């Protein structure tokens, strides 16, 4: 994660995953509920796959959001020395 002080909070990968799958989950759930034709259903062998996938993605998003907020990133006070070029 980013090492530069306060910026770390803005750039938490878990939050990005939550946002992307939150959007995907909502879009697919709405499409599955309101815009699914018989043809779409027949294609997926009778399963409303958009709806179920949408719900699944929304759950994934919720898990990552919960993880992000229950265990926020702690920026280490002392940045460990990485010794760039130390082998020369």
């Amino acid at each position: 994660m980013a090492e530069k002080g306060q910026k770390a909070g803005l750039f938490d990968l878990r939050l990005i995953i939550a946002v992307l799958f939150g959007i995907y989950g909502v879009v697919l759930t709405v499409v599955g509920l309101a815009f699914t034709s018989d043809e779409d259903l027949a294609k997926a062998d009778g399963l409303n796959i958009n709806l179920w996938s949408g719900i699944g993605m929304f759950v994934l998003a919720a898990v990552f959001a919960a993880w992000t907020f229950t265990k926020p990133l702690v920026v280490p006070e002392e940045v460990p020395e990485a010794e760039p070029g130390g082998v020369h």
Partner: protein
Amino acid sequence: MPVLAQADLRLDANPLDYVLLVIYFAVVLGIGVMARRSVSTSLDFLLSGRSLPAWVTGLAFISANLGAIELLGMAANGAQYGLPTVHYYWIGAIPAMVFLGLVMMPFYYGSKVRSVPEFLRRRFGTGAHLVNALSFALAQVLIAGVNLYALALLLNLLLGWPIPLSIVIAALVVLTYTTLGGLSAAIYNEVLQFFVIVAALLPLTIVGLHKVGGWNGLVDKLTAKGAGEELGAWPATELTGISNPVLSVIGIVFGLGFVLSFGYWTTNFAEVQRALSAKSMSAARRTPIIGAFPKALIPFIIIIPGMIAAVVIPQVQALNEGGDANGITYNETLPLLIRELLPNGMLGIAITGLLASFMAGVAANVSSFNTVFTYDLWQDYVRKDRPDEYYLRVGRLATLGGTIIAIGTAFIASGYGNIMDYIQALFSFFNAPLFATFILGMFWKRMSAAAGWIGLVAGTLGAVVIFVMADPKLLGVLDLPGQGASFVGASVAFVLDIVVSVVVTMFTKPVPEKQLGGLVYSLTPKADRTHSTTGDDAGWYRSPALLGGGVLVLTTALYIIFG
């Protein structure tokens, strides 16, 4: 690609699908922009400043390997060979990943090297270093080219985009986020890509299984076709091309499970780099082991769709029976199944997943190429002792140069029917002897510098000779039609490397022991090989040995169930 195949494969993508795709691209580029703010040194850019948590590097570890070629190739193998394809995931990955984490990582991470070639330079000096740095850089650019070619074909077939346009767009996206954010951006995107790929393939597998009447329905239908061998993992004679079942099993266990797999997973810098970017020794050791859990499970959503395609897609059925499939090849199995089963919406996610997996592959190639180029070639041999900003700039330029060369090499891949054969050939040239040299070098302090590079060269030549002898387009004197040639080639390379290294060592001076601390087992104090168990590394569930044992048990159980 024949015209008919193109018309056959066009996906019916609508604006909704494109919106889902565009959202993904926006997030990917956003990560590049955000990651840029944390890049201030070359180490930040090329090794993420060694600051990432283990779950991130662990998922990136397998995602870097989950390129489009892997996906399409393994689904193709699933359709062609059935369940034996799991060997590539189970015996062909898990033991090596656990070995890397438990046995080799203490030397890689503990010695603070910045790349795999750099380890060779410190252990064996310039000869082995140059051989490895050059061959690795070459292989990465070639493989990036293969990935680009696969993507271009895919976009052309699925969406009708012209091949040059799709190459440029995709290359630009990868280039943008890797030059901006460096390895952090590549790794963050790999983790995202992992989830998108699962989100695309899991629903596809569920719909497919529903269609064929569940797992039992699939088994019944394949058995009715007379494809009983495709339902058990062993002895996989079709997969290896070795008709004797006993030799076939030996080929898989030694050739794939030991030589090819250990060579690839433990010495390929595109993989090891993910672990080197972890924030502590414990996290670095856990990286490949955490990656091993999804690696053990993911064949279910890659290979099973291939097997489903073999019973529900007429063209794939025709291929199985050796008939005419209108120019379709096994590599189109996954796109065909997606077109058949997924409605708009999920179709967009599936297209996004395929593109994401392509980008995972290319980004891994490019982000490991630029590190080796910058630290191992430019800094060691061309311009030493410049300020760090200079090497940061070289790293960014190497990213650009590598991508441009990759575009040029995309066409090398086009001469081969099954893309996997080509990839395997490359791996066996460069990777199989490497593992032999590493394992000798880490555990045998007497091994000399000359033995390091002579062994590598001998092993690589051995693999090339087998490849030339087995390829029907070249000499064709060895009869190994399936993947057998690469298994044998890798085994020969491994044995030759060991024999030549031992013999050369007998006649040359050993490396002074003072220089080998942290690099060789017997000369590294135990304290330097162990990881901390406090703070973020505390807790029994963070023990590398326990996690490693767990995934080996899981894999054994899977083999017992699906053997």
